[in-house]
Structure formats: C-alpha cells, structure tokens
C-alpha cells in the first residue's frame, strides 16, 4: 500500500494516468448530473457512440493521430448526432428514446465501418485508432492530460457561469421560457458541455463504456443529498475517486485494463450509495420500516 501511494505521486505513468482519470471523472460526473436529473441518462451513450465516426474521419482527413485532432473530430460528430436527436424529437413523432437508439446505432455503425476500412489500409500509421473503442489509459501522455484539463475546465467554468439558467432549464424549462430565457439555446449549450465531458474521456475509457461515467457518479451522488450544488460537487468527487482507484488498481497487475476498471469502481460507488445512503438507501429504508412495524406492534399490544 505505501508503495502504491509512492507510485501514485512519483511513477510518471501512474501519476499521469491517475491525473487524467481524475479529471475525466470530475468533468463527466459533474456534467452528467444534469443528464441524470433531466432523465436523459442515455444521451451520454448516444454522444459517445456518435463520436466514433468523427474520430475515424478526423484521422482520414488529416492523417494525424494527435489527440487534439481526434478529440475535435469526436466532438463534432457527437455534437451533430445529439442535435439530430433533438431535431428529430422536435419535428417528427419519433420519441426521444427511439431517436437515441437510431442515431446511436447509425453513427456507431458508420464508425465501425470507417475503422475497419482504416485498419485494412496498407500504411502502418493507422494502428491504435481502435483504442477509442474500449479506451487505453496507458498511452496517456502528460500533454494529453493538459488538453483534458483545459477542455474540462472550460466546460466547468461555463456551467458555473450559467448555473442559474441551467438549473431553470433542468427543473422547469417551460417556465424558464415564459421568463424570456432562450430554452432551446440553453439546451444546446448544456448538451455541448456534455459532449466536451464525454470526448475528454474517450481516449481513456472508450466510446462503449464512457456513458457509465456520465450516469454512475450522478446516480450515486443523488442518493446522498437533496441539494443541487452538493449533488453536482459530490458527483464530481465520486467521478474522480472512481478514476483514481481504477487507475491505481489497474497498475497493481499487468494487463488489467484501466477504462473498464474505472467503470467498475464507479459502479461499486453506485451500489454502496444505493444500499447505505441515509434517507434513500435500501438498508436505511429497511431499518426504518422495521422500527415502524415494531413500534406499531408494541402500541397495538398496549392499547387493549
């Protein structure tokens, strides 16, 4: 254990991976809270899957594998996919979940086709794009972490700046609209922030599992508090905790994948929160019920 702690601070690879995982956990946990509260948990899934063709296209167009280029491609494709979902819901009779399903699979399908196409090409430079499927944390460099921090930082700053507007959007958009706020524009802003949160994590966790990090920390955080600010802060904290623990656990044994371990850690946090959180937890509720039953029982015997 002391060795692990030592490595966490002094081993370059582990330190970089842990830092990156912490950043991605904070950003996706924080912004994922809004998706969960607005009952759009699966939006993150659609965004991350829709991002795959963007990564492939960015590589095909530029020939570069620089993270910033690929992340930009991912962001544009993820953003377009989400706008298509929102547009379909608004202008057709297709429901939100159906639209999500269609866009997600169409974009992901195109992404897989492009990825296969790239892999079959003669040149050797293409190797490694498929790491975006399941993520590959070990390849993270310090400069990638800086990119992640910068992107995530901008997203979090915008969220704090428009705190009141985003709260209104999430709780009662129609009322917000009568107050004169451009609700559709705010919706697009919030979705854009979520897109940023997701593409920040793609390299580490991959398009398939990324949505878990959008949903899980927020669901866990919701169990512990009834205040929006605290919930969002907690979700960011849980995300970071899951990220760092996943990175550390994967470093203890060779060939343990970081991305899936981060997701497993986040899931463990959800499980613990569902069971043990006061007021909302399962154990708490069971105890309360038993206490109530016993009290009724006792009173029932005293009265006659």
């Amino acid at each position, binding site marked *: 254990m002391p060795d692990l702690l030592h490595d966490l601070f002094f081993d370059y690879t582990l330190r970089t991976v842990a830092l990156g995982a912490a950043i991605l956990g904070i950003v996706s946990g924080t912004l994922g809270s809004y998706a969960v*509260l607005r*009952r759009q948990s699966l939006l993150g899934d659609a965004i991350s899957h829709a991002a795959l063709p963007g990564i492939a296209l960015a590589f095909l167009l530029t020939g570069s594998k620089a993270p910033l280029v690929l992340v930009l491609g991912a962001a544009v494709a993820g953003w377009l996919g989400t706008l298509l979902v929102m547009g379909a819901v608004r202008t057709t*009779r297709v429901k939100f979940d159906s639209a999500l399903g269609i866009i997600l699979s169409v974009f992901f399908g195109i992404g897989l086709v492009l990825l296969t196409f790239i892999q079959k090409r003669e040149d050797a430079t293409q190797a490694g794009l498929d790491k975006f499927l399941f993520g590959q944390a070990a390849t993270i460099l310090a400069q990638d972490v800086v990119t992640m921090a910068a992107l995530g930082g901008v997203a979090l700053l915008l969220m704090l*700046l*428009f*705190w*009141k*507007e985003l*709260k*209104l959007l*999430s*709780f*009662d958009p*129609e*009322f*917000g*609209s*009568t*107050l*004169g*706020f451009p609700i559709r524009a705010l919706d697009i802003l919030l979705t854009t922030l979520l897109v940023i949160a997701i593409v920040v994590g793609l390299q580490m966790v991959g398009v398939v599992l990324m949505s878990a990090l959008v949903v899980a920390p927020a669901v866990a955080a*919701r169990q512990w*508090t*009834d*205040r*929006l600010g605290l*919930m969002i802060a907690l979700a960011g904290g849980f995300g970071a905790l899951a990220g760092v623990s996943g990175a550390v656990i994967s470093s203890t044994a060779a060939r343990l994948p970081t991305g899936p371990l981060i997701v497993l850690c986040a899931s463990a946090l959800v499980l613990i929160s569902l069971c043990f959180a006061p007021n909302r937890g399962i154990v708490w509720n069971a105890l309360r019920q038993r206490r109530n039953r016993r009290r009724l029982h006792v009173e029932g015997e005293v009265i006659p």
Partner: protein
Amino acid sequence: MLATATATAHPITVRDLTVAYHDRAVLWDVDLDVPRGVLMAIVGPNGAGKTTLIKAILGLVPVVAGQVRIEGKPLAEVRRRVAYVPQRGSVDWDFPTSVLDVVMMGRYGALGWIRRPGHRERQAALDALEQVGMRDFAGRQISQLSGGQQQRVFLARALVQDAAIYLMDEPFQGVDATTERTIVGLLRDLRSAGKTVVVVHHDLQTVPEYFDWVTLLNVRKIASGPVEEVFTPELLRRTYGGHIAFLGQPDQDGTVAAVAGGEE
C-alpha cells in the same frame, strides 16, 4: 401617446388564433378579449384546448395562425408583465432543490443573465411564501411536499414575479381544502390589487362563486363575458355537447350550478 395606447389596450387580446397538433386542430379561430382586473375562468370539456390557449398566449406552443397581444404589444416586449403558474404535474418534484429556491426562480427573469439571486430575491420569496401560508416550509426539500403544498409553492413563484397578468393552469386540481381556500383568497387579493387573472378551471360548480368572468371553450370559443351573462345552461350545453347535468334551477341572476358528466 404610447402610454395612452397601453392604458386603453386590453391586458390580453387574441385574434384568429388557430393551433394544431399534427393535423388535429386544438384551437380553431379563437378571438378573445380579457378586460383589466377580471378574475376569469376558462372552462370546457377535456381536450377543449384550455391549456393550449394559455400556452399559446405565453408563446409556448407554435401557432398555425393568429395573433396574441399583451397590453397591445407582442409578448416579447412585455414579458415581465405576465406570470405563469403551470400544472404542478409538469415538473419532477424529486428534483434536488428547496422550496425557497423554486420560489426565487420567479425572480430569474428580472435578474437577467448570469446574476445570482441575493438577499432581495430571498426576501421577496419569503414574503410570497408567507402569502400562501408556506413560510415555515422555505427550507424544505420539494419532494417532501403534498400536492396542495406544491401548488402553493408554484403560486408563490408567480407572486414574486410581481406581474400585472397571471395565467394559471388548473391551480385547483387535486388540492386539499386548505389550499383551495388559500388560492381563492389569493385570487381575490390579486383582483383587488388590480391584476388580471386567467385560470384554467375544471369544477363548474365553483365558477360562479370564485370568478366574475368566464370563457367557454371547446376548440372554438363558445362565449366569453361576465359570469352572470355567459354561464347559462344553454351556453354550457353548447360547450359540453349535451354531456351535462344541472343541479337545481338557475337562481335569480341567471347563473347555474352544474357538473360536467360523461368522461369526467
């Protein structure tokens, strides 16, 4: 000159309003003038377009044709003169926030972009909560409220908007007797303060008691005017298409107590 125009214009004027959902008309060619200072009920059967009418007035639903004017102007120019109380079922009451926080949302429009609510907004919200008898619940998490309390929170949120025109969607829906009395008192206070109040209402029996003006709606506007002139068996029958039973005879001023039958 502009001021005189505003002073003479009706708080709400609707002309030729048609709203359709896909290819079904929900509102058809509705003309409506709501005079200043009335307490008006919008009454009609289910699916008559009552909610759609106030949403169209608020610009919340796309209109096929027609025009809405607030105090003679487009809504966007006079937004702060209008307050809205949506159906309480329209939001998720498990949202992690407090009663005080929800009420302060009524001040967000006046605050504008980015500025956060401060001491003044807090005080306004507490005063509004006092008015609806919910002062002690300010710090309460909203998921702990009963239906009637939720409704009063929504009313308080509209009160802090300090508007001239209030549009309310079924504020009496499923509330307890205390809340009903509170709301009735509040509506009367608003009228005494010279405000114009429009309420989507379901319970025909209480219309003559609670309101002084009524609009009968069933996709088209059947009639609109003072309760004693418009709330008659003949016009109600036309609104509800015969599915209606009357309790007792019309009293001297011509109004009736009635309940809607059929699908209610």
